[in-house]
């Protein structure tokens, strides 16, 4: 990849914030994971989140869909607002989680058929009509660029797909409940470069329909896809700005420059 793709257009950014995070502090027991971070995420942007391990990126995603609550002994302070509503005041936490699609680093095909994998979330939400489920399954598999490969064997097991296919299945599943926000946590870690590029193309089209939070270890991936990029380090938000600025010769923080140019530490 020599020519960086020009996708960092201005669509999205600078309109209404969908997620407003203010002074968010998270601790696991006594060890801090996030030390009071504040930023907004705008409608229909791709926000790249970069930073080394242990910098709190995954924790941030878990706070947003409130799955952090399932980990014992965690403390969360500060507030996260989704469409202006503090997520901790949302009574229906399962409904909240369905508004957010989550893709984890390692692909997880549930031990169900491909069809049932994608139909899982709609079914838990109470959709029973076969025609409706068929429609959702096809749409999501299409969106995740997997439909053509699996359309003839929807009843075979999701766990038997290859790693790259399973990751696209995971993405299809995350789209199945029509989320407003799609969070991807280092989705390309177990995926070959070709599949990664295909998924990246998928994300660019999805951007018109939803807001995307892209946690990534590949800084070039953020550069290729993100409208804005946030740099996290040891639980602090060091810098958040348009991707052009972050990857320019003069981001406002020297650590950011060192990290994106690989001269960190």
């Amino acid at each position, binding site marked *: 990849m020599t020519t960086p793709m020009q996708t960092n257009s201005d669509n999205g950014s600078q309109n209404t914030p969908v997620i407003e995070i203010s002074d968010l502090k998270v601790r696991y027991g006594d060890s801090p994971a996030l030390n009071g971070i504040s930023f907004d995420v705008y409608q229909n942007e791709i926000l790249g989140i970069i930073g080394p391990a242990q910098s709190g990126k995954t924790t941030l995603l878990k706070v947003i*869909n409130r*799955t952090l609550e*399932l980990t*014992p002994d965690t403390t969360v302070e500060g507030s996260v607002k989704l469409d202006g509503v503090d997520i901790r005041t949302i009574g229906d936490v*399962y*409904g*909240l*989680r*369905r508004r957010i699609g*989550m893709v*984890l680093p*390692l692909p*997880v*095909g*549930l*031990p*169900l058929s491909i069809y049932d994998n994608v139909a*899982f*979330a709609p079914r*838990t*939400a109470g959709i029973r009509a076969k025609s409706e489920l068929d429609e959702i399954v096809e749409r999501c598999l299409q969106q995740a660029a997997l439909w053509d490969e699996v359309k003839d064997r929807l009843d075979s*097991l999701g*766990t038997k797909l290859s790693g790259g296919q399973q990751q696209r299945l*995971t993405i299809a*599943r*995350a789209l*199945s*409940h029509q989320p407003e926000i799609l969070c991807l946590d280092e989705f390309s870690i177990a995926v070959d470069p070709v599949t990664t590029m295909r998924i990246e193309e998928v994300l660019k089209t999805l951007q018109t329909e939803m807001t995307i939070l892209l946690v990534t270890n590949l800084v070039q991936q953020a550069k290729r896809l993100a409208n804005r990029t946030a740099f996290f380090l040891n639980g602090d938000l060091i810098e958040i700005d348009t991707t052009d600025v972050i990857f320019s010769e003069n981001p406002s923080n020297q650590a950011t420059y060192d990290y994106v140019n690989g001269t960190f530490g």
Partner: protein
Amino acid sequence: MNTDMQASPQTMFTETEIGKQKRWIENGMRIFFLVMTSLMILPLLLIIGYLFYKALPVLSFEFLFTNPKDNMRAGGLWAPFLGTIYLVVVSLLVSAPIGVFAAVYLNEYARENWFTRLTNLAVVNLAGVPSIVHALFGVGAFVLFAGLGESILAASLTLAIMTLPVIIASTTEALKAVPMSFREACWNLGATRWQTIRRIVIPNSISGILTGVILQVSRAAGETAPIMFTGAVFYKAIAEGNLFAYNITEQCMALSLHLFTISTQVPDVTEGVPYGTAIVLVGSVLLVNAAAIVLRVYLRTRKKW
């Protein structure tokens, strides 16, 4: 490239001293483990073979379906055989649901705190309590305190208390074998814990759960101590061939106790009868275990990862 590396392909594949040693150790260890396995299997085969040989003269359909006669010196096994079935079935009807659901709670819902730690500790320790202690507990709790008297019910409940911790432990193992990532994926999709358990966790652990439960059949069938003070009786004649010949508020005979009595308490027993009793006891247990294996294989083929 380094010239040494290119040297000659032949020398790369000739066996070195270390390689030879490794091969010897490898073969030696394999034979050692094989011998140990044989040492385990051999006595088992000898016991069953010997029992079978000694029991051969008395084994017949009649042996299984007639009551003991002549003061238990001869006759069949119907009363103790049916009694054991009653005890095992009633005890598992109590312990299996409680044990499985308790394990689901402990593994899927409970948070790590002093209460769950204490519960897990209790489960582990209860599993190691000698059966005679369970017997005394059963006498105190079920026969006397609950007023059940010496009955199938009291004996079964005592057996249930004995098998419960092991069922909890084996179910917990089966549930833990389902990868955590499956649960996380479900939660991320907005599934409740119960939806996750019902759709993903239980279907993928059911073979292990059932195997754990069925293996307790052999323990419940084989134990003598917990039932001899709580509901099993020395001798009781019942209607032959009638599956409902026992009432669970009354006492019953049991194979394990029967074997003990005719081997030690009754003089001049027909020679084959104790061996026949042992064969029926071992045979029914093996049959149930075989059923468990078949079930496990069947459910395994449906396992999905």
